[in-house]
């Protein structure tokens, strides 16, 4: 399969793919699977009842990755996809999802990815989902991901949710349920500009004893863009949770951030913190004393912050 320059750029940006990967992979373009293969331990198969795929990782699969990027390169496409990912007991894998929309037309292009992820007992998963939009067209680029994560006993998940640029509107909905001893870290990085809007809802339920979750959200709202964050951690058992939302405003960006914690067990330990503000002037001054211009300093600070 050959990729054109736009497709290549999208794939590189959202999935760090510089060539077609050799392992398990599914590449979806404009609502259709264009490349799919399984590996010895990771099966990738299409769903029979609705659009989407099942990714089944065999128990004890170690150090493998599966790439399931989605591209939309045509204007006026609305793509809804249902993916189910099952990580077998004791496995340790990386899942690279993500979506890139190149819209150079006038019509709206939209991708709604609905992911159901089950991480079995003692398994470990790193999940990376990057969103990116490009193209000069006036058509909107819309991404509405829904993720439903079920973590079994003693499983470990690290999720990195990143929206780099160019996405006009996004409503993210992430839900996770953690069984006994499960551990979840979600890091969210979001940059909006122009008139973009982003909403992120997250509900994490600590159902099993000694489970723990940490949500670290960092975002930058530039120009006239707007962001809303509503992460909630609910502890139903003896467990630990921490939510942190940290945002930088540039120009006329607007951000609303309401982290919430709910304890339903006397031994729950939950904390939250949120901060919104401009770049601290001292930071700019310090970097300027090292010879950077104000614009360069701002760029360096934002890049570090969103790293």
């Amino acid at each position: 399969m050959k990729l054109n320059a736009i497709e290549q750029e999208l794939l590189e940006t959202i999935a760090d793919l510089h060539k077609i990967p050799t392992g398990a992979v599914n590449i979806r373009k404009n609502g259709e699977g264009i490349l799919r293969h399984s590996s010895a331990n990771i099966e990738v198969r299409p769903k029979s009842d609705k659009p989407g795929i099942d990714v089944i990782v065999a128990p004890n699969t170690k150090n493998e990755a599966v790439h399931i990027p989605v591209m939309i390169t045509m204007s006026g496409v609305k793509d809804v996809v249902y993916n189910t990912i099952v990580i077998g007991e004791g496995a340790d894998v990386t899942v690279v999802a993500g979506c890139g929309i190149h819209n150079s037309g006038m019509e709206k292009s939209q991708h709604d990815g609905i992911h159901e992820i089950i991480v079995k007992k003692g398994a470990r998963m790193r999940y990376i989902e990057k969103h990116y939009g490009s193209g000069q067209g006036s058509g909107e680029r819309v991404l509405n991901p829904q993720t439903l994560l079920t973590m079994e006993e003693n499983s470990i998940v690290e999720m990195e949710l990143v929206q780099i640029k160019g996405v006009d509107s996004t409503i993210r909905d992430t839900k996770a349920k953690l069984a006994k001893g499960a551990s979840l870290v979600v890091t969210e990085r979001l940059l909006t500009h122009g008139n973009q809007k982003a909403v992120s809802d997250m509900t994490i339920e600590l159902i099993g004893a000694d489970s723990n979750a940490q949500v670290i959200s960092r975002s930058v709202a530039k120009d006239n863009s707007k962001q809303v964050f509503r992460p909630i951690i609910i502890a139903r058992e003896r467990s630990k949770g921490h939510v942190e939302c940290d945002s930088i405003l540039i120009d006329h960006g607007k951000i609303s951030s309401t982290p919430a914690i709910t304890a339903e067990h006397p031994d729950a330990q939950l904390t939250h913190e949120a901060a919104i503000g401009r770049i601290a002037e001292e930071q700019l001054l310090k970097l300027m004393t090292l010879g950077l211009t104000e614009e360069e300093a701002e760029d360096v600070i934002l890049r570090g912050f969103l790293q």
Partner: protein
Amino acid sequence: MLKLESVELQIANGNENVSILKDINLELEDNKFYALTGPNGGGKTSLAKVIMGIYKNNKGKIIFDGRDITNLSITERAKAGISYAFQNPPRFKGMKIKDILRISSDNNSLRARLRAVGLCPQDYLDRECDTSLSGGEMKRVELATVLSRPSKIVIYDEPEAGVDLWSFENLLQLIRDHHNKSNVISIVITHHERVLSLADEIILLADGKIVDRGPSDKLLPLLRTDSRCCWEDNCGGNDNEIKCY
């Protein structure tokens, strides 16, 4: 040579302007090590920030090597060779120590630069310059960013603050070595007697004015006497106590 001519600084405070620096006239010679001292709130840091361009003086001129730099920006002054080590260096979320070292200088020997300020590169290169670093660690990183820059003037704003006394001697040696090696004008803002005794010259700044200046061996004994309380009749202090301002 750095020359300040009739420099004044006023900062708006509500509806009125507060005079922070008053008619400062100062000539600092190349290769000399200066200690700038005086009571809190006397204008030391403000003077440093005026030299760096962080504050713009309302009146007067700043001449650096014969060039009027009064209207140059911070960035332009940094490029011209003026460096300033902050008293309270800001912290950066997400920025690693190696990132800020790279910004400060193209010099790639990041490890050597960290070792020089007493931070083990193995532990610190990938640490973030955020609140996880202690005040003393942050001061060391600050020193590392400044010492690696090609400078003609280096201002250290209370380098001793937050650093344990045991390591301070090492850091001071580092500042001295840098001074001797690089032919710079070094200005150390300090309350530390050890630094004062090492300086070629001490400048005493109080209430926004230069009150006195002179070679260390002459001024230091005066400072010692002057800094003792002499108001026993008024408030009960005696000359064993440090004077309050």
